[in-house]
């Protein structure tokens, strides 16, 4: 699922956006979610500033935290925790939050890739290649259960 910047955006300023961009850059550099300590080292901010910034970005739906630590759960389209949507792109393995995000990983990295998941009905493995933003198996269907207006009611479920 994609980010909708429909949260509490009033509290997010340019400094937070730059902080968000740094967090994403570090995620891609590391191939996983950075810790508070790593983000502090990368940005030169204090760990408390990282935590406060991440919380504001979480409220703004710019990333998703596991609270109360806080630890990054989603930097959409990337997932910080293993999921059933595995993507190999740009020389690394990634987890995506859903099928939409799996394509999003290729899109955000500007790379071809391979997506692996399973049909939630029968469990059969679904594997497809993405080349120049196009899937090599065009017969598949994408189903979204939750209406768009409710995606952020429970983003982990969505």
């Amino acid at each position, binding site marked *: 699922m994609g980010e909708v910047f429909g949260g509490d955006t009033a509290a997010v300023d340019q400094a937070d956006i730059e902080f968000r961009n740094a967090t994403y850059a570090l995620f891609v550099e590391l191939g996983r979610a950075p810790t508070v300590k790593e983000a502090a080292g990368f940005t030169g901010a204090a760990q408390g500033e990282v935590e406060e910034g991440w919380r504001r970005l979480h409220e703004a739906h710019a990333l998703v935290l596991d609270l109360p630590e806080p630890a990054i759960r989603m930097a959409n389209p990337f997932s910080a925790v293993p999921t059933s949507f595995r993507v190999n792109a740009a020389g690394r393995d990634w987890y995506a939050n859903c099928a939409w995000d799996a394509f999003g990983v290729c899109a955000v990295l*500007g790379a071809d890739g391979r997506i692996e998941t399973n049909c939630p009905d029968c469990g059969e493995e679904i594997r497809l290649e993405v080349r120049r933003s196009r899937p090599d198996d065009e017969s598949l269907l994408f189903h979204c259960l939750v209406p768009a207006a409710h995606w952020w009611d429970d983003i982990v479920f969505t």
Partner: protein
Amino acid sequence: MNLFRSEEHIERWLDGRAPGGTIPVTKLAELAEEWWGDRLAPDWRPHTFEQNQAILDRLGLTGGFWRLR
């Protein structure tokens, strides 16, 4: 937000629940490109509701199900 082999698999998985939105995987790939393509750009700015709704509309994802609010 899953991938399925066919409508039959979706119906069986729904098991009586109301269906949501179903689109071809090719449309999903287009959607992902438009939605996510800028997320690592140095000048990235948060998408507004209007921008995101415009992406959905442009791809023909119209109707109440695809309204962001």
